[in-house]
């Protein structure tokens, strides 16, 4: 069993890669399942080959040779054999928006500055109706206890995807005409750094309004929790009690 600090390997980058890819799929799936956009723009794609490949190359190399070089962000969708199928949007602007969002979140994830990533579904009056909260914790000391770490993480992320697919059962229907936004809760002064480093040009981040963040009388519905050597994540939904009002 190897114990490494965050500086020893470029683990932060790898974990950030994995998380960003997962969050991209998760956001698309939430939009599909909650019918924020018409289902026609969504296409069935295969997932959970790509991050595993990144890991298999890099982390297993790291375990053997103490050298890690994460692959640059590869296209999310692969046409390889399916472990999970997910619905992804085909609309280019929507995809670009989600990708840009997560691209900006990635540096924060690398430095472990992110507390939670929230996908908020807003009604026509721009009041939050539902919030899908991904609480993320990365342990400072990473212990790689097994070679099958990555397939284990893949399995856990797959379970998240499955849970999002069936969250219909526990949530009420949303009113028509909803939109969505992504909020990132960071630790301490991370956002100040973010303003300095504008990751993507013309894609600025702003401090969220109180009304976007605060939901009146929420109901909490936990969906899934995962614990692994490199990552701990919890997904729950905050739902407004009366959605149509």
């Amino acid at each position: 069993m190897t114990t490494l600090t965050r500086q020893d390997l470029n683990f932060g980058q790898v974990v950030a890669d994995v998380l960003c890819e997962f969050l991209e799929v998760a956001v698309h799936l939430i939009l599909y399942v909650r019918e924020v956009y018409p289902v026609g723009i969504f296409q069935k794609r295969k997932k959970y080959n790509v991050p595993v490949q990144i890991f298999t190359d890099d982390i297993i190399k790291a375990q053997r040779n103490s050298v890690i070089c994460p692959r640059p962000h590869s296209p999310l969708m692969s046409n390889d054999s399916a472990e999970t199928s997910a619905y992804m949007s085909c609309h280019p602007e929507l995809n670009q928006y989600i990708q840009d969002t997560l691209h900006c979140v990635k540096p924060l994830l690398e430095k472990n500055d992110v507390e939670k990533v929230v996908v908020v579904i807003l009604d026509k009056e721009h009041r939050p109706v539902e919030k899908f909260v991904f609480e993320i914790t990365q342990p400072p000391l990473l212990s790689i206890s097994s070679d099958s770490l990555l397939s284990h993480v893949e399995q856990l992320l797959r379970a998240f995807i499955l849970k999002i697919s069936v969250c219909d059962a526990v949530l009420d229907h949303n009113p028509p005409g909803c939109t969505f936004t992504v909020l990132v809760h960071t630790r301490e002064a991370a956002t100040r750094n973010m303003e300095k480093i504008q990751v993507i040009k013309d894609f600025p981040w702003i401090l969220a309004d109180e009304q976007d963040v605060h939901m009146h009388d929420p109901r909490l519905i936990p969906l899934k929790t995962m614990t692994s050597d490199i990552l701990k994540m919890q997904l729950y939904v905050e739902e407004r009690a009366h959605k149509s009002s």
Partner: protein
Amino acid sequence: MADQFYLENIDEFVTDQNKIVTYKWLSYTLGVHVNQAKQMLYDYVERKRKENSGAQLHVTYLVSGSLLQNGHSVIYVLTDCFSSVKSKLAVTASIHVYSIQKAMLKDSGPLFNTDYDILKSNLQNCSKFSAIQCAAAVPRAPAESLSSRKFDQSDLPASSETQASELTTNGHGPPASKQVSQQPKGIMGMLVSKAATKPQETNKETKPEAKEITNASSAGGKAPGKANTMSNFFGKAAMNKLKVNLDSEQPVKEEKLVEQPPVSVTEPKLAAPTGLKKSSKKAEPVKTQQKEKKGGKRVELSDDEAKETENMKKKRRRIKLPESDSSEDEVFPDSPETYEAESPSPPPPVFSPPDPLPKELPPIKSSSGESKRKRRRVLKSKTFVDEEGCIVTEKVYESESCTDSEEELKMKTSSVHRPPATAVKKEPREERKGPKKGTAALGRANRQVSITGFFQKK
């Protein structure tokens, strides 16, 4: 009896845990035959409908039969709208409950997802509770698999088809009468085609390997024998390296390889020797694809392929290491890096097989491939007996004027004195006598140390 509690179990899974309960998942979880699991689900659905309780349940069914037009067996998975589907089927072979869940499913993705994990964790006995059986499908012993892969398996599709017709049904009666006899045919049909393509793929892979070996050893009688023993020792990983080294041989051999029916996996490996990296990456998706398939044979095959791609990657690493460490003779003007762009240069016509490491890559360094007269400073190993009576080998720089062949001879002679105690690095030059038909430039710096040097020592 445990049977009494299954209703409560299903209730807990569906209502409390909000899971999707498929019959396959239920059979593994409760340890019952799939047909029994289907009946359990059916019972549960019936009871819930009778109770008409508030809990909303969605049920998906599996309907299979033969289409009106094509006559093929078709499997539908759908929710409750039987009549439209039944009208499309000439013969309805079976209808049974596929899954129960609280949420309405928009597509079949979550169903697959549910089964995936539980199947993966039960891969070794995935057919334990299954209704599909084939008596001839037994996991192969590892020793058999290496040698038998070389044999032609083209008659496999034919044989498995005959086996499909001989299927026997299991003990438990399914809810639908004609289900078991029809279903296996349809599913066996799919499995047969899968099985046919798989052995074909590996078959084609081994065919070129076998051909390459025979080509390479045309000049030397010992080589094929050695190849087989070596392959038995090192398995597929070694064979691949062999293949890679042979790839650097002439186009003549490639012609023979081209005759092979093209297979997507092997093509990149054979046709593009420089594209080693690409081929390993292409092999990866196939590797993961094959990993997911169930069955003893397939698991084995995929393991080997995984090893092979991993070894290919490892091999690329290994190219770098020995050159930076100790190589027997380092020729200074030559850069040690150039041999990485190895293969296209004129290869040696005869290749000694028991050399799995890409030791042959250095020869290509001198692109001309002809022996040149040069004066250069060479790091040579001098072997002598020191005061304690131990045979010691030291590296010493010497300038010499020599052709490649001369250089080799010198190395051969010095290798005779090699003491048994020295490290592996000091070793093998005998490998070079194989490829040495004079044309290729071998025996220069950045020689790869071959692990089979041990076996050469007599």
